């Protein structure tokens, strides 16, 4: 089961609503880029016959169904959207509660996630879901394998890499080193329209709005533009010697040499 999040496109202009939440309606929405790598990894496992089926799970507004449809166009079998009026503004903890509850119902061998979401950037949801479900975490894999009753990842270390292993079921997260995500083919896009997609409410996963503490244990009190940096100094149309002189002067003025 691949957990995917719909996020504003990296290039889209972002705006905040009056209550300091991201105005998701104003920005073009895409599958979180790092989740595309998780999708790619899952589809490769399915093609190799290591896993039987690939499904997608997302928590988000109704329009997140578009992200699920796009994932289905890349491949895989079915999708589930958890959406509820109580969920906008959900933080890492609330998101993990909801995903863990949905995954409890689905009981997949592997819940596969991206290493981080573009907007929250916490890399917290995978570990929190593993803790809530009481299953092992294999995080930051540059490759995931499923062999019989165990899962294995390759993970970068300070100076090399390790292979980590855990018994199924697991929560796993993968990096952008698993291989470039495929594009959806026209055939895939057509096929995706007929693949099953379910929509669940909070009650469907056995949770109530009260339990989720207003969907967030955190609150944004201020949002502002970062302090403007001084404008860039440009060195153009000069030969290499002149460029070097200018660079050294600049380094010297800033006491960097």
């Amino acid at each position, binding site marked *: 089961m691949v957990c995917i999040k719909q996020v504003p496109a990296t290039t889209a202009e972002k705006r905040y609503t009056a209550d300091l939440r991201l105005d998701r309606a104003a920005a073009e929405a895409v599958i979180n880029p790092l989740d595309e790598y998780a999708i790619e990894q899952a589809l490769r496992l399915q093609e190799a016959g290591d896993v039987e089926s690939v499904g997608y799970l997302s928590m988000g507004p109704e329009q997140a169904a578009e992200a699920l449809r796009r994932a289905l166009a890349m491949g895989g079998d079915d999708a589930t959207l958890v959406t509820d009026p109580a969920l906008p503004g959900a933080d890492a903890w609330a998101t993990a509660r909801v995903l863990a509850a949905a995954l409890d119902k689905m009981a997949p061998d592997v819940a596969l996630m991206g290493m981080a979401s573009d907007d929250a950037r916490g890399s917290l949801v995978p570990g929190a*879901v593993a803790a809530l479900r009481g299953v092992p*975490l294999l995080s*930051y894999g540059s490759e995931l394998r499923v062999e019989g009753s165990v899962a294995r990842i390759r993970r970068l270390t300070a100076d*090399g890499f390790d*292979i980590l292993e855990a018994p199924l079921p697991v929560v796993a997260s993968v990096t952008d080193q698993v291989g470039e995500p495929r594009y959806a083919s026209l055939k895939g896009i057509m096929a995706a329209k007929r693949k099953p997609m379910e929509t669940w409410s909070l009650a469907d996963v056995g949770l109530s709005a009260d339990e989720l503490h207003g969907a967030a244990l955190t609150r944004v009190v201020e949002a502002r533009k970062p302090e403007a940096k001084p404008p860039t100094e440009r060195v153009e149309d000069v030969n290499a010697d002149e460029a070097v002189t200018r*660079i050294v002067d600049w380094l010297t003025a800033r006491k960097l*040499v």
Partner: protein
Amino acid sequence: MSNDVAFFAEFSDGAPARSALELAAGAAELAEQSGGEAIALAYGPGAGDAGSLGAAGASRGIVLGDGPGPAIGHAMAAAAAVRELTPLAILSPATPNGRDLAAALIGLLGVPAFGPVRAARIEDGHLRTEQATLQGSVVTVSEPADGAPQPAIVLVLPSTFTPREGGTGTAAVTPAPASEAGSLGLAHVVESHPAEAAVANLEEAKVIVAGGRGVGSAEGFAQLEELAAALGGAVGASRAAADAGWVPYQLQIGQTGKVVKPALYVACGISGAIQHRVGMQTAENVLAINKDPDAPIGEFADLFVVGDLFAIVPKLTAEIRRRKGR
């Protein structure tokens, strides 16, 4: 509930990681603001020596475990310790290990999480964190929601706090309350493949000379090595350069690589994609050398030199060496 500020102190090869020293200083600073103590939650090989963090700012240390396994294996011990301490906040390094431990605590304890942050403080007993969201386009200030339980967990970016120098003292060390590692302890290392050559730790470098696709080859990177050596720094890279196999992935800077904050960042043949930018935009001084006058890095570098890096870099190296009298 206490006013204490705890922090995760990672040890490896018998010594505290750089992040442990930075967070010890940070926790001491926040503890002073809250009127509590700075408490180290130490894990990893050498964690038994957590007392040494006294000189770095810690008043007390609790040893979660000194095994070499993945950090999340210490999550149940951390949760048991934190239930007893109920500190105001826990600072956690925004590294893979630190994030996994923090994430597990969020799941186990149902507590708020912040970050990755680049500033944190306690004002009138309330935690406030500052975070650049949405790839740096907006800065938000956050705090725990009303009624949110303690502690707040704060992921802290490298170089947010500066380690104390010349400190003295030893922190009193106790073991964590007994706990079972549980299912989070089941993930384990079955093979280790260290690299043959040593790999620089970019998070500690004061100067980074980074290369991108424009560097063209591993041989091209040798020229950057020379410049880095002359400046007393280390070499970093864009993902394109790591993907090409010119340098190991440990040197990649950006969203899926390291986040660095050196005094000087020299970007050679790097276009400045947003995913690269988020890893280096807080560098104090950014010099970019790029032959494309319209490269996006020209919009946020401090000094943007339009030119061929192969013509400029060797001459720059020679001039810096000459000035240093070598």
